[in-house]
């Protein structure tokens, strides 16, 4: 019996195990992506139109692979800074759905207790930092959190999410420069959805890719298909390994497309219909499902079950959120300072 033959069953086992892991990962991704799609559909196409959400609504339709593929690799000590199109980050960190819906509806059980709306929410008990509206403002804050992780001797990573347009801001530059010069553990994740509100990439920056900005900071930068969740996950693994090993920041540019207007009130007439058609075919959920069926990781029935599970979870969460009261106006003044 040759040595080669002897290892064959071992290898087979390994391959099988890897396949099973991939299948499991795919299922997880599908669940979170579908959940994000469903929650955001419900928010944008139902609750907003019903007048139950009175403020701005921004969704990540078509971009779900990015928060899901990346955040699934976050360890408990890692700190996440989701952008306004990364709702799935909240699911993955265990924020109950109902609280997210309550947030949108301005109810007291939202993460900000009605003080802020939509994705302007955070939860330090889960190491999620809330954005402020000013784009890229979280970038230097993420650098500071990374500084703290190192200071505290934790092997954590700060996940800093932003869009293509946000890279035009001074805060982005200052934050990335600080993180790189101090070799801080920050993973920069760009969702390049090719538009910033109505502004196409070509009117936002002269370089072709956000990744082209990496060398300015001597920072490795990689482009990945942002509509392929497994590819995003794989690239994130590499990137996180680099960052966690103390080599400094890494920039992951996820190419994708914003399959909606900028916000619920924007019909996006400025986007050529052809782009929607083209990218519609690349829908990350549809793509993942096709791969799962093709690889025998799931059959149609199983996929349907995921979607109906998701729908009922969202039904339940909406009902829960709708029963959450509005904040009591007498609390208006509370909590501007610690002792007030």
């Amino acid at each position, binding site marked *: 019996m040759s040595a080669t033959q002897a290892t064959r069953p071992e290898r087979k086992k390994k391959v099988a195990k890897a396949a099973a892991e991939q299948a499991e990962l795919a299922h997880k991704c599908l669940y979170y992506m579908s959940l994000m799609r469903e929650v955001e559909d419900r928010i944008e196409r139902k609750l907003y139109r019903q007048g139950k959400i009175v403020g701005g609504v921004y969704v990540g339709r078509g971009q779900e692979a990015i928060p899901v593929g990346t955040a699934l690799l976050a360890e408990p000590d890692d700190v996440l800074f989701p952008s306004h199109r990364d709702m799935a980050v909240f699911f993955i960190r265990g924020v109950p759905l109902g609280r997210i819906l309550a947030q949108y509806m301005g109810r007291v059980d939202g993460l900000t207790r009605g003080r802020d709306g939509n994705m302007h929410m955070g939860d330090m008990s889960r190491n999620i930092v809330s954005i402020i*509206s000013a784009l890229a403002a979280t970038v230097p804050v993420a650098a500071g959190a990374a500084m703290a992780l190192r200071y505290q001797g934790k092997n954590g990573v700060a996940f800093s999410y932003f869009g293509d347009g946000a890279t*035009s801001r001074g805060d982005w530059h200052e934050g990335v420069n600080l993180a790189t010069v101090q070799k801080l553990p920050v993973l920069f994740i760009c969702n390049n959805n090719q538009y910033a509100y109505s502004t196409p990439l070509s009117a936002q920056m002269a370089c072709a890719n956000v990744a082209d900005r990496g060398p300015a900071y001597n920072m490795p930068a990689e482009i990945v298909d942002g509509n392929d969740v497994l590819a995003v996950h794989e690239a994130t693994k590499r990137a996180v390994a680099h960052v966690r090993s103390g080599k400094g920041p890494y920039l992951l540019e996820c190419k994708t497309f914003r399959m909606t207007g900028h916000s619920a009130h924007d019909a996006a007439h400025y986007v050529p219909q052809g782009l929607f058609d083209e990218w519609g075919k690349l829908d990350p959920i549809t793509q993942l499902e096709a791969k799962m069926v093709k690889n025998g990781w799931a059959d149609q029935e199983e996929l349907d079950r995921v979607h109906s599970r998701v729908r009922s979870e969202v039904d339940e969460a909406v009902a829960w959120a709708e029963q959450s009261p509005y904040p009591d106006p007498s609390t208006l003044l509370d909590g501007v300072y610690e002792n007030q």
Partner: protein
Amino acid sequence: MSTTYLEAIREGLWEEMERDPNVFLLGEDIGIYGGAFKVTAGFFEHFGQKRVVDTPISEAAIAGAAIGAGLMGLRPVAEMQFADFISCGFDQIVNFAAKCRYRWNAAVPIVIRAPSGGGIHGGPFHSQNPEMWFVKTPGLKVVAPATAYDAKGLIKSAIRDNDPVIFLEHKALYRRIKEDLPAGDYTVPIGKAKVVREGRDLTIVTYGAMAWVALEAADTLAGEGVSAEVVDLRTLLPLDRETVCESVKKTSKVLLLHEDTRTAGIAGELAISITESVFEYLDGPIVRVTAPDTPVPYSPPLETAFLPNADKVIEKARWLFRY
């Protein structure tokens, strides 16, 4: 034909661009898209991309580029998508634009338009009233019209002014108020307040969206036999202390009203200006109705509690009247 506050600004911008080829616009999404509030809808098509410049998301660069173009003799009108983002270009405005003339005698004839104010469920970052940061900065002018007439007349004056002007457009007024505007060109002077309602018993001094609240309160008060005079400041810097003090001399009582948060709002500057000049005329404490010292909350019941309204003004005015 009635013109909204928003259309009035739009008309003012349009007419100034027709009048003076040096006037041009820059900002985020103001071109094809016509701006977040559609104030510049149609401008790109009519004036072309030379005069309607879409910029990257770079408030410091927008302010800075406006300054540079202004120094060169153009008349840039920059748009902040929301007034809340003006803090991202803050240094350019308070240190560059505001100080050029005093330091080295260089004119910076720019206008920075900033949709401000609450009442539209915008939450902490789409509802702020940033006026006092700029009222606190010598070298700037700060304008905050309440009516369509003033909005049009003041945007024109702002564009023709040879100093940097922060032009605050109250978002909640954009489509809510309408009035007939005179045909043809007119301006409203910067630095002049206006008595928008005459009264005898007390003066309410205010500006922006609160001017309407003051008028509503004055109506109710009139029914109770309290005659309130309403002064609309229209410009916050330079501040028209004379008009305010004249009114106080007449009524001897004054209520200061602003949507801005309480501490260090314009009420303070008005109060000390009044005591400095016409203390002897005062027949009661100077009082104020303002938003409280919190960020602007999102949820409707909280925002409603946050914003000053006619009831709050009436209550305070009654107290002052009886004083």
